[in-house]
């Protein structure tokens, strides 16, 4: 079982080599917010802290975000080595297949929920065609729905995604607009006991509930969320 940690560029600015050491890989970016795509400088900074495998995490993308992701993929491809990219956008998946043979797409949590619904014969053939060896997940329900999928699963904890908006509560703008990353790496607890028995946790533009690492046999990698 591989062990990994995921962090956004803002969290990277506070990370130390000790927090990252001992991991088989490090995820950098975000599956939920376009403004948390890392820059080339962020990738260099991560490499100065950590010498292992880096996985680029990407969210749903606007045209502007897709161009930013394309630039990142170009930079990563220049190293002439295969690299993994978490993909939550059909357009990016298509782009990788067309232009970036060194990029290995991992289906992200937003798309995993969707593809888990698909006919598994189609899904397996689709993943083969697009060179997808694994998907990201964070719930037992998704794992159950993936029954019949031949690839591996990477499981995220200790928070399970439950909702996302593109209208950011920090900037009061759609998150395809530039922002100063005011959300930082904060996890904000939200409660309404009459509506939800358990609290929600807001991180940036996404909402989560707590989960635990799963021991499902399909899981080949555990991905811990970086938290201060």
């Amino acid at each position, binding site marked *: 079982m591989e062990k990994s940690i995921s962090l956004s560029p803002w969290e990277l600015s506070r990370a130390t080599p000790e927090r990252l050491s001992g991991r088989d890989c490090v995820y950098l970016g975000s599956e939920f917010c376009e403004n948390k795509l890392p820059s080339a400088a962020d990738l260099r900074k991560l490499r100065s802290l950590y010498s292992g495998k880096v996985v680029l995490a990407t969210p749903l*993308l606007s045209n502007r975000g897709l161009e930013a992701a394309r630039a990142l993929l170009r930079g990563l491809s220049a190293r002439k080595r295969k690299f993994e990219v978490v993909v939550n956008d059909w357009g990016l998946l298509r782009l990788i297949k067309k232009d970036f043979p060194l990029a290995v797409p991992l289906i992200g949590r937003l798309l995993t929920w969707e593809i888990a619904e698909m006919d598994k014969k189609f899904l397996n053939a*689709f993943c083969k065609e697009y060179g997808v060896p694994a998907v990201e997940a964070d719930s037992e329900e998704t794992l159950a729905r993936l029954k019949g999928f031949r690839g591996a699963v990477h499981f995220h904890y200790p928070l399970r995604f439950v909702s996302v908006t593109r*209208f950011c509560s920090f900037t009061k703008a759609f998150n395809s607009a530039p922002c100063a990353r005011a959300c930082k790496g904060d996890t904000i607890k939200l409660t309404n006991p009459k509506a939800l028995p358990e609290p929600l946790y807001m991180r940036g533009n996404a909402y989560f509930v707590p989960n635990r690492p799963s021991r499902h046999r399909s899981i080949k990698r555990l991905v811990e969320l970086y938290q201060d």
Partner: protein
Amino acid sequence: MKMTVGVKSLREAMYFLSAGADEVYCGIARVSNNRLARENFSSPAEIRRVIALAAPAGKKVFLAVNEFVKEEDYTSTLRLLAGLKEAGLAGAILRDPALLAYFKKKKFRFYFTLSTLANCFNAGTLRFFADLGISRLVLPMQMMPENAAGLIKNRLGVETEVFCPALYYGVNLDSQCYLPCPQTSEAASGSFRDFTCLLPFRSKAGTFHMPMPGPDYMLNAVYDFHRAGVGYLKVARWPNTLRQADLFHKARYMLKLLEKGISRKLFLHEGRKIDSKPLEYGKSFTLKPFAG
């Protein structure tokens, strides 16, 4: 800009078509779509009656198949759509790439609309689905005009459709929201106080509401979508038909203003007078269909 309206019955189809809708769409209970069974038609024969109603006026009818379809249902779905196509159905609304790929493999050509649930936010995603045979794209509710130009003026011949953001907006991405929701739950709708995304939450910093843009932003979005050349304005199926009818007439009024070439300033002035959250009909998710 034409108006397309979701309906739950023949009577609703009659109402909206006679009130100015250019198209209606509906679901059928045994085919996977984004509404509860009780909000769907029960048989192809009922859909045929809607087609027979719309066709003489040159109006169109579409079928929603906008959820993922199980492989064992592919053949029957194809058979159903082929039969209804022959009867005059104008097209189908889908989101499942696997189903689109199956239709392509079977050389079944039809007017396919990509559902808003597919979250097409960029030109690459549009190309991905265009390769699978779509003819129209419903822009995601959280796709705003400033990001949509490349999708609206695409070179693929794909038409575009939008919701009226000033009157209908998803606080979170609706296909990616797993919060408890009265509109998608089989549980009795009366047990929900409201949509979870509209409720107040407590946080360390005080009361928190899940964010959404202000009314002026949304009115500007309606204006800009119209100017950008979006072809269709959508009024979705709602459980509470009176609320839906209210929304339809307000959307139609806005559209009339836009078609007259009203200035942005005047459109905002008029738009601000429209109550976008009517309460007199009850909650939007309470099933209150027209009788009959």
